[in-house]
């Protein structure tokens, strides 16, 4: 029998980096121990310098990530979707000890998740030695809990937006000619069809998606004992610089105010060319509470009913009916 042992590819990657003259990063540290004695990895991306942005799509995460990418020594990992791999809800019925993510072996697979992420980050951002990496991961929020458990030193941003505005934004994006429909092609045509033919069903589906994604991110936020902050899109719109300063303050990330102000200015709504904004475009309205114009009364009630626990927590004004 052959006893040849295949080379581990993270070992390969480390050697590759050595061959290329790049700094190496050992990401094989046992959980929750840091990857080196002083709590920092030898190079590349340190787990404590990662800032995860969870929530859901259409909450302004692209905008926030764009601003977070600006300061020197900062970078953004744009939607790795690692959270989607580790979506525990997909496997609820497989609770047995044989399941790869069985609780009895959590220490083993949590370390694998950690390595999976850190190896991926180090390969993509080898030059970010000591810098900060924001991970824009709204689409992977279903796995936020496991990710934050695997990387307890990382910072976390829970980015929230009124679910009625989120659903209204999706409805616009997925209608005929909407940016999402154009981008997705064949798949988009199916979604477009539902947004056009049965908008109420579309609204219901996206309200549940909001509940699932933001609910998962919310639970991860609650459980995370490290640095974390809740950012509401509405606050970010009302006072971008102030909200960014608060966010970095809570995350204990030093960013010069002048640098931050420059980033905020560069990516402000007002600086997006007019022709790139409007109905059916990626940059649509950026107007909090625009759902009042965009959704029907019935659709509003649907979203409010489905997302009630989150709506009450983050937008406690009460349902639209009571607001007059």
């Amino acid at each position, binding site marked *: 029998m052959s*006893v040849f042992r*295949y080379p581990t590819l993270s070992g*390969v990657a480390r*050697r590759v980096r050595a061959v290329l003259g790049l700094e190496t990063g050992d990401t094989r540290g046992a959980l929750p121990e840091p990857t080196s004695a002083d709590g920092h990895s030898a190079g590349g991306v340190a787990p404590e310098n990662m800032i995860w942005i969870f929530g859901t799509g259409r909450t302004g995460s692209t905008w926030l990530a764009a601003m977070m990418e600006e300061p020197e020594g900062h970078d953004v990992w744009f*939607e790795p979707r690692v959270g*989607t791999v580790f979506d525990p809800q997909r496997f609820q019925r497989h609770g047995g000890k*044989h*399941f790869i993510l069985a609780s009895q072996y959590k220490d*083993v697979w949590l370390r694998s998740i950690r390595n999976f992420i850190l190896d991926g980050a180090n390969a993509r951002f080898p030059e970010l030695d000591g810098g900060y990496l924001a991970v824009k991961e709204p689409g992977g929020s279903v796995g936020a809990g496991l990710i934050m458990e695997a990387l307890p030193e990382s910072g976390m941003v829970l980015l929230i937006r009124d679910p009625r505005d989120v659903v209204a934004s999706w409805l616009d994006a997925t209608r005929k000619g909407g940016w999402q429909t154009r981008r997705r092609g064949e798949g988009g045509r199916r979604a477009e069809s539902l947004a056009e033919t049965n908008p109420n069903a579309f609204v219901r589906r996206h309200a549940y998606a909001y509940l699932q994604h933001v609910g998962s991110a919310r639970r991860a936020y609650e459980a995370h004992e490290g640095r974390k902050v809740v950012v509401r899109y509405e606050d970010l719109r009302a006072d971008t610089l102030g909200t960014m300063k608060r966010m970095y303050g809570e995350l204990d990330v030093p960013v010069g105010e002048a640098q931050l102000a420059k980033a905020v200015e560069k990516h402000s709504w007002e600086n997006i060319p007019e022709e790139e904004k409007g109905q059916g475009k990626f940059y649509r309205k950026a107007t909090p509470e625009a759902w009042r114009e965009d959704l029907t009364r019935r659709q509003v009630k649907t979203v409010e009913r489905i997302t009630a626990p989150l709506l009450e927590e983050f937008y406690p004004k009460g349902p639209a009916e009571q607001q007059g």
Partner: protein
Amino acid sequence: MIRDAWRKVRSRGMPPAGEETGSMLPENLIWVFGTARTGSSWLSAIMGEIGGYSRWHEPLVGHLFGNLYYERAGHRSEDEHFILGGRYRYLWLDTLRRFVLDSAAARFPEVAAKEEGYLIIKEPQGSMGAPLLMEALPESRMILLVRDPRDVVASNLDAHKKGTWTADLMRKGGKEKPPSLAESRPDAFVRGQARRYVRDVGNAKKAYDAHRGLKVLVRYEDLRANTLESMKRIYSALEIPVEEAELARSVEKNAWENIPAEQKGEGKFHRKAKPGGWREDLTPEQAEIVEGVAGSLLRELYPVRSTA
């Protein structure tokens, strides 16, 4: 760039990075891919009975990674930021490799401790990710277990009706089985199952074709017709030593005839074990649906039967 640099490393005569002492040997893993209701429980039970073998029952690791790679984010394979993006394929395949080997070693230390031990991984429902798993573990051995898609669909149609073994299974897990399409819209259910067959067996077949290591294709129908001979063929193709007497004993012990009668029949896990039973179970329209959706695989895997 990573690949080129790796070639440079190898050409300088550096030894390959070793894996930790005491870890699972990848060549001692025997993967069983296909899809649900192809007899994988039976096959793995026969193999698991034999001394020196352990059985990992549906880890679903193939589903974990395959679902994102092939379905949910298949369109992002060229995106550098995507965690399973093409540019970093060698890196994440290594992670997948470590994920499997570390998990296997933690669960089956008795196999990891010795070089002669084998771990049979029954993974029909993770077959979607079979190409990724076999690429990550090229030394592993592979069994592609197939069955006529019409019989597979018929078996699933029976399993998902009200009050069957699948409902019992869910109840054991503290849940009630929701109403199934198998009852309300059986033709739609059949179509869905046929698509699932194509997804699972199609990907498992791709993995089988690409795999350069030891492998064997087994048809459920051959296993039923002559179990011992089929089993001997499997061990021979996989180059695994086995005592024929021990194998015969295991085959006998796990024979359909030795399953108590009250555990067999409609709605039960052990249903018919009858190749061609679909002729009694499916309507002609349903058989046509399956043949339409899975026709290509059916012709490839059952070239004679498909023309019958």
